[in-house]
């Protein structure tokens, strides 16, 4: 599929309608999307050339940026209806985020980094406890599944290699079984072999957690691994990005 609509008919985990966004002081919108839905556990590959607004869209989907017009609904709530404070809480409760540069806290161990979302969200903590007895047990399970050696679990993030950090970041996004995982070019720093291995692990873990995944990349060779691929320049009606993240 190369359009913005999902073929499934169940209640979408993410629904986007008439979305318009422009940067302050910009003359024109940089994002203008009529419609975009994601079903639960669906895995979407969002691609487009560098500078086309992929990260901006991801920030909008995650409620980090607020659209100028239209609506984005995550589960049953629209980001617009929430106060900034409530948006922070709602985001951590329902979204796992894998950053382009992983953004692990360097002074925490791999295990502590993975558990962090459960420390900041009661819902993620409860999900973990319900399915794995405790957040610690789920963190161990995720790190095991991500093939991170047990001896590395207590090392600080700063002591891990890039590949190891990436797997820790993925485990952190998946802990507490969030309904949606947003991944912003997480494989850009890896070589081809490691990229494929990481992607296989990530997709497998998303299936296990029942999380929908939006995977942003400009590398179209990865598209085949996903349920659906979406080209941002195709669904975005904005004529040109004035200012792109």
């Amino acid at each position: 599929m190369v359009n913005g609509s999902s073929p499934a008919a169940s209640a979408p985990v993410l629904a986007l309608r008439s979305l318009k966004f422009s940067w302050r002081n910009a003359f024109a919108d940089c994002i203008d999307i009529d419609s975009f839905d994601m079903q639960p556990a669906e895995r979407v590959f969002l691609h487009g050339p560098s500078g086309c607004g992929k990260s901006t869209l991801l920030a909008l989907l995650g409620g980090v940026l607020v659209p100028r017009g239209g609506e984005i609904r995550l589960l049953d709530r629209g980001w617009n209806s929430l106060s900034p404070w409530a948006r922070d809480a709602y985001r951590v409760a329902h979204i796992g985020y894998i950053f382009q540069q992983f953004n692990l806290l360097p002074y925490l161990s791999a295990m502590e980094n993975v558990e962090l979302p459960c420390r900041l969200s009661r819902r993620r903590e409860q999900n973990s406890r319900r399915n794995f007895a405790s957040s610690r047990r789920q963190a161990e399970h995720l790190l095991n599944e991500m093939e991170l050696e047990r001896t590395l679990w207590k090392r600080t993030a700063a002591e891990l290699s890039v590949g190891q950090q990436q797997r820790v970041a993925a485990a952190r996004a998946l802990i507490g079984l969030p309904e949606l995982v947003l991944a912003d070019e997480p494989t850009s720093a890896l070589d081809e072999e490691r990229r494929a291995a990481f992607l296989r692990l990530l997709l497998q873990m998303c299936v296990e957690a029942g999380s929908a995944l939006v995977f942003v990349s400009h590398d179209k060779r990865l598209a085949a691994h996903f349920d659906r691929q979406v080209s941002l320049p195709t669904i975005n009606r904005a004529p040109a990005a004035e200012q792109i993240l």
Partner: protein
Amino acid sequence: MKALFSLAAKSAWNRRFVLALTVLSIGLSTFLLLGIERIRTEVRESFSQSVSGTDLIVGARTSPIQLLLYSVFRIGEATNNLSWSSVQAITGHPAVAWAVPISLGDSHRGFPVLGTTRDYFEHFRHGERQALRFQQGAPFAQLFEAVPGAEVAERLGYRVGDRITLSHGLSEVSLAEHADKPFVVTGILARTGTPVDRTVHVSLEAIEAIHLDWQGGAPIPGFTISPEQVRKFDLAPRAVTALLLGLKNRSSVFAVQRHVAQFKAEPLMGVLPGVALDQLWEVLGTGERALFAISALVSAVSLAGLVAVVLAGLNERRRELAILRALGAGPRHVLILLALEGGLITLAGVVAGIVLLVAGMAGAGPIVQARLGLDLAFSAPSPAQGVLLAGILGAGWLASLIPAYRAYRLSLIDGLTPKV
């Protein structure tokens, strides 16, 4: 919240070197501020406690401050003396309980020599009406006996039984020595923190005795009187520098003062030590105000330093805070965290400053006591110092709110696309 505090603690431990420097910087500022304040109050206290229990100081007519300066602080010289007959007449006034004549003008290795009577050791008071105490020996009883103050004895290493000679005049290096009439140390006074510590006390008769064979401030050539022969002369003093008076009833102080001012035989004056001390402090108060201004500047600079350090640290922590925000910590959490961290750093700095001050006082206190006569022993903070400490804490915490507010305003987008 608990998780955030635990995170904050780990983050702080991760930045322990920078934080330790910040704490040290605040600690040094607190140390300076409290130290200056302590010295300021101690100088004032030491000054105001130089003399107490003396109701009136009588001397030749001059300015009250000058009379106080030479009779109590041993600074400067008397413009004139008062005759012994005047001393006897004033001492005989019915309101006078005790009178202690003092005679200045000689010195011993730079320390002033005070000729007086044994009554001096009984009646002179300092501080909170504290009497003089002897750390060794007893007052002089014989003619050529001396009682040095604590600082004189300590600096020159004197003990009871040592022999010393006096010099004519007040200069430190004197060519005119009363070397032929040595004195024996019979006692050493305990420390008072007043000019008494820097004074050598001898009897009035001894002052007369060493000047018998002198004229016009120099020995009479070819004429010497041995210490043994000197005892055969009438050694009653002819004049003294000043007279310290204690009254039977303080309410008669103005009557006695008037009596002294109207004294027929010679022009005299009597000053109330408390009033003269206040007048003198008016003059010296500029120094005190300067110290206070320095304290205020030190506080301002140290707090500005605190803001700068926390702000610089914030730039380093921008990414960390943004990651926390992206993972669900709200801006208010970040604000609380930074304000809490700022408060704790300031508190730790203030505690470090107090520890430094205590250590500094323990280390330098005896030296300052010996050199300057200031008692810098540690004592519980005074109410004024308590206010100062609360001020540092409050101001430090308020200063940390500036970077905290800045962090509060940090866009969450920083956490998603951090600028490395």
